[in-house]
């Protein structure tokens, strides 16, 4: 009995190990190569930071990084404001009961629709409105799917929300605006921040939608687009270094988001 148990534990354990290896070994290789002095994927020439130094002197990459930062921050800001009020509007109306599945599905759509479809749709939309393409169109495009993510995260937060505290605030003489400012927003703020970090992460490495809606020229090239352009001439160690940095930013934001989004401690 105990033997068969330990056998199955071993099998399951090694299976888990293999899956993790499959997932993470390519990333580990990438990180290692970014420190490879020789610059060749086949030969290890010792540890060096020279590819990172090279990055810092590549103006194309730096301007792309700046563009990405502008896009991600702006789209996140728009998404946080609109997504939060969207979530509040829906949940305050509904107060816990689960009617209105159609609204839910419609809200989720930008998260689920294939990026390529959303990209083409937005491009057609901008053409129709005769809006020129550039950083602003990427920002608006990113805001579209980011709103859905922020809204989803904030709504999760609101599921645990005790709505009577809003009435308590009114009962104690506060106006709706004061209640929003002093009670509602502070209580759901961790959720908003979590949604914001998530949408920032998504925005930083989004390629397809940005690629379709950027127009031409270096002025509206984001980091993923820059990497794509560089990679057409082969994977350089510089790209490995860049990818490592992007991953670091993404993982940090994602971990912070998850930590913030843990359900608030509930009273028993």
């Amino acid at each position: 009995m105990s033997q068969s148990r330990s056998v199955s534990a071993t099998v399951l354990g090694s299976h888990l190990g293999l899956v993790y290896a499959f997932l993470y070994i390519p990333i580990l290789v990438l990180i290692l190569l970014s420190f490879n002095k020789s610059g060749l994927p086949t030969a290890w020439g010792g540890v060096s930071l020279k590819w990172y130094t090279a990055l810092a002197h590549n103006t194309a990459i730096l301007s792309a990084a700046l563009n990405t930062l502008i896009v991600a921050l702006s789209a996140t800001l728009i998404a946080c404001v609109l997504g939060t009020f969207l979530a509040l509007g829906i949940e305050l109306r509904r107060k816990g009961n689960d009617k209105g599945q159609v609204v839910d599905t419609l809200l989720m759509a930008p998260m689920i629709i294939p990026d390529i479809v959303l990209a083409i749709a937005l491009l057609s939309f901008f053409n129709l409105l005769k809006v020129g393409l550039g950083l602003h169109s990427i920002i608006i495009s990113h805001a579209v799917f980011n709103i859905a993510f922020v809204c989803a995260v904030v709504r999760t937060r609101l599921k645990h929300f005790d709505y009577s505290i809003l009435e308590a605030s009114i009962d104690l003489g506060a106006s709706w605006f004061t209640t929003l400012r002093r009670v509602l927003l502070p209580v759901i703020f961790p959720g908003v921040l979590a949604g914001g970090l998530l949408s920032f992460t998504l925005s930083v490495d989004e390629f397809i939608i940005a690629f379709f809606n950027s127009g031409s020229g270096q002025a509206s090239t984001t980091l993923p687009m820059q990497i794509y352009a560089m990679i057409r001439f082969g994977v350089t160690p510089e790209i490995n270094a860049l990818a490592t940095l992007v991953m670091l930013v993404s993982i940090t934001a994602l971990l912070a988001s998850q930590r913030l989004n843990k359900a608030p401690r509930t009273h028993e």
Partner: protein
Amino acid sequence: MNNSSAVLILDKVSKSYGNGLAVNEVSLSIRENEFFALLGPSGCGKTTLLRMLAGFETPSGGCIYLDGNDISPLPANKRPLNLMFQSYALFPNMTVRKNIAYGLEMERLPESEIRRRVDEVLNTAQLGELAERKPDQLSGGQRQRVALARALVKRPRVLLLDEPLGALDKKLREKMQLELKRLQHESGITFIIVTHDQEEALVMSDRMAVLDGGKVCQCGSPTELYENPNSRFVANFIGVSNLLEGVRSGPHSVRVNGHELSVETDAPSVSGQSVAVVVRPERLQVLTEQGGDCANQVSGKIVEIAYHGLDTNLHVQTPLSDKPLIVRVPSSQFEFAHFAIDTTIRLGWQARHARVLTR
């Protein structure tokens, strides 16, 4: 009713949802400095009524007068009434002190006065040491005290309490019942409490109204409602009752299952009317020998003995009804050897202890 001392008057207040009436033409007059209980089973409309007083629901009909002024058009944040929520509804992002100060800050009082009044309330509610804690660091009883302090510090004309003790365990609840009564007395503020717990209402309130199906069944002091219920519903809802269904057979008699019972009642005698005779368990006596001064007597078999510590309830099956009669005997007078299940005993009660209910 003496309206001159009434703080709050409800005049035919109704609330309808869709086709149903949650509150149906409720008229009540609540006096200055009174502890008033709204009692009823869940769904009787008591919470809706309270929320209309607080301003969170708009009546579909009727008026609510506070000190003679119709407050129906006033929004919740402009009414000099405060509500203590069942869930306490403390602000999780603020300390105890901030929670209590919130209502005073909304009145834009000077900071020194806010500080003084908050300190004062923290003291009365024995929350001094907890002032800098957040609500999630408090026990249920402490949270309850903070919620109460937060409402009281505003010195409302009327404090509304929605099932304030519902979330506490039995021991703490009994302690807080007396505590609430003391606070009400000391503050001189009128309290209106909503509860489904009849014992709570009996212990705490000066007067109470029993609600059922959105209507007031009966309103009066706890003693009045307990001793003189006006309907089967009230008799059943408050305390334990022995209800005997029968037919009125004379000015002082009711026939129950072929037995003539004598009663004293003011209810007009309508021969042949279906009525119920109600006798409280503590009014039933166990007769040791024949006779005694009891006008009504009946024999029965003990089917169950429920020991409650202070007293013991005997369930006695009699020919008067299908349900056994419940007799409350003080445990100190209870000789266990004499009473065992299946023993036949004789019960009696006086005519003046039986009430006749027509509704």
